[in-house]
């Protein structure tokens, strides 16, 4: 067992015992910290279900080795983005647009979409589609997801 890894997750410093620095961040978040937001979808960085924010950028936690995460970097998951009582505007927009079917991909859609909106305050529908082009949804919720991002951007 190596020294505990120090991380900053959802605004709180945490120490996690890990014996392999190559372990992807996803497993710390899900197994050590018991978070449900980031999801295992492919482990290959292809689908986006595992997306978290690292210093505000959308990152695929399933292919991010722990050794690449610095203790001071701020990791934010879906839980840290907002809560039922105080949802992030995009989380609220997903509820308002009923933009979920099974919901398994939705973590990635919201985390990717929220990071996109911080740098693009007035996106077109085409911009949003392009921003989410690397996130896969199998249920076919795409149209509602796009509308939710439009709504959060104040375009609806």
């Amino acid at each position, binding site marked *: 067992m190596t020294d505990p890894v120090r991380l900053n997750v959802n605004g709180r410093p945490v120490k996690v015992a890990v014996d392999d620095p190559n372990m992807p961040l996803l497993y710390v978040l899900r197994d050590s910290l018991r978070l*449900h937001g980031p999801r295992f*979808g492919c482990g290959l960085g292809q689908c986006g279900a595992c997306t978290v924010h690292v210093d505000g950028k959308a990152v695929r936690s399933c292919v991010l080795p722990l050794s690449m995460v610095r203790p001071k970097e701020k990791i934010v998951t879906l*839980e840290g983005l907002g809560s039922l009582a105080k949802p992030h505007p995009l989380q609220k927009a997903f509820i308002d647009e*009923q933009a*979920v079917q099974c919901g398994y991909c939705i973590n990635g859609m919201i985390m990717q979409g929220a990071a996109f909106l911080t740098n693009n305050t007035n996106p077109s529908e*085409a911009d949003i589609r392009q921003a989410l082009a*690397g996130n896969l*949804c199998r249920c*076919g*919720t795409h149209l509602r997801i796009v509308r939710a991002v439009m709504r959060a951007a104040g375009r609806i």
Partner: protein
Amino acid sequence: MSDIIAIATRRDVLKGGGALIVSFALASRFSPAFAQASLTKSVATDEVDGFLAIGADGKVTVFSGKVDLGTGVRTALTQIVAEELDVPLDKVTLIQGDTALTPDQGPTYGSLSIQNGGMQLRQASATARKHLLELASQKLGVAASDLMVENGAIKPKSGGSAVGYGRLIGGKTFALKLDKDAKPKDPTTFSIVGKSVARLDIPDKVTGRFTYMQDMRVDGMLHGRVVRPWALGASLESVDENSVKDIPDLVKVVREGSFLGVVAKSEWGAIKAARKLKATWSNWAELPEQTKLFEHVRATKISKDDVTSNVGDVEDAIQKGAKSLKATYDFAIHTHGSIGPSCAIVEINDGQLTCWTPSQATHNLRKQLAAMLSLGPENVRCIYVDGSGCYGRNGHEDAAGDAALLARAVGKPVRVQWMREDEHGWDPKGPPTLIDLRAAVDAQGEVIAWESQFFVPEGAAGNVPLVAASLAGLPHETTLAPGNIIQDSAIPYVFANIRTTCHRLAETPFRPSWIRTPGRMQNTFANESFIDELAAAVGADPLEFRLKHLNDPRGTELLQRLAALAKWEKRPSPQNQSGGGDIARGRGLSYVKYELNRTYVGAVAEVEVDRRSGKIRVPRFYVVHDCGQIINPDGLKNQIEGNVIQTVSRTLFEEVTWDRSMVTSLDWASYPIITFPAVPEVVMDLIDRPTEKPWGAGEPSAAVIPSAISNAVFDAIGVRLRSVPFTPAKVKAATQSI
């Protein structure tokens, strides 16, 4: 004394009512208390107590054998019960798919959750309501006919004090058979059904509070991963356990026949062990060549013929026809492609097995696990936990089988999470479909014969054999279960001579199962494209041509509304696009009466075909949908949008690939699905018929998508696409062959 109370091991259940029953259902395992529960809680489909319980607090618990696979039926079923009992939605809790608690209402497939499952709940609720009125009548001394229900309480219509459901029956059983004469509420009085009630699960799903199967953990649980053979039919020869001895978390390498798996204390440890484990497998290379798939299908032994319709004398008519047409259609092998790979947890204690699973068929899985491990079914409990959307029988049941073998081997609860390549490689596949069609037209341009032959695997629904049981050589089913794939092989149109035959094949290259709209999609693709060929052959407008041969007022109304919605321009296809650069635009129509006895759907696709690259874009779909009484309009829209988008993906992009030994499309790069830029706009008209029966909506709208696109491509460029997926290479090849 309530049967419900008897199942709980926790204090306060009696007082707490619904909510605590739920926590019991989610958290409890097989235990002495559970064994007692399974003896006492009714799971009978003909008893009110099978479906409903009312706590002392008046809260209602619904026990549903149908489960929410991400389609929103949790909300719709809750609406049905709340409506029928006149209780607020938030007083109703739904427990799904727990073999100890919920009746076996059949698997959640075939677009039957509301049509069948919901109607059982409605009848149970109507029976309960009638009984509650009788109880209130006795208590209040007022005739039942002079009472009214409001907010879970009953009071005289003339006014006066009310008595709540909790006081009337709270904590007691109904001890009643479902009463088919208990009349459900008049739909014109509905205030919950028919409304776009917001989905109950969405707030938790968008804030990370929802517990999917993949999130679930139980005390003392270990992590398992499977190590599958390199080839589908290879057997295990030897395992080198030294290859993983440096993995600190490893608990055990489990080998049983050709089943191989690892169990570790941590998830990452299990993943690493599965990757590093060295094993020797036999050679196996018996898959057909992919490029010759449909020759293989055509040459496969036919075990029987199902003639699904037979009118007049087709052969005679075809010989007499002035003009005959024939065409062959095929449809590729598809994978379910769940975004979350399959997952399950199994715990075995004292010969009693508890399985947490996103299975769409927990009652069937229970029997399969029992058979595999030679347990009595009464010693197996399967509990549904929402997973990633599955769209049919994907790998969830197999993951449960894997977890059962691993849990048995280590004597502790084991969670098995399939990796991406396990899901793409080993989920059962939608089988390949080959269809030959012929038709004849007389000298006046009237269609006088329609004949079709479908080459599809034998078998129906039922149970798909578990991978673990097959590999380990443990008891398992040996029959094919591709779903009820001969549906919609017969056609909704009236011609003088019709024969439709399904040649049922004795085998198919991959373990088959059902994927959304099984058979109906493939069969409708061929039928509705070929009907378009006939319309074009006689120079008719595709919509007019269908209307002319339809003898079904509801279908006619639907098509007329579709014409209005899509602003359909009456003219034959293809349109003449002289010049016009590389991009050609077209529109195509398709129609289905699902299984020829329920939901009607019509669709118009708009397409843009790039003649140079062969790429098809579908900017827009118009859909008109009639499933009778609509329970939740927005939920229905969500499902239809999903069907359109998912099926555009299947039609344009999807195809399982393989070499002679194994699936080679093992990730999203090799099995691409639709992405945001390619998603069509969907314009809808929902026909609501509140006083009619509610029919299924999970699948029907997917049936019409491939043919609508094919017909639109023909309209655009005069080329028929008869092979799904419509890849650019196929478009270019078809264009060059004109």
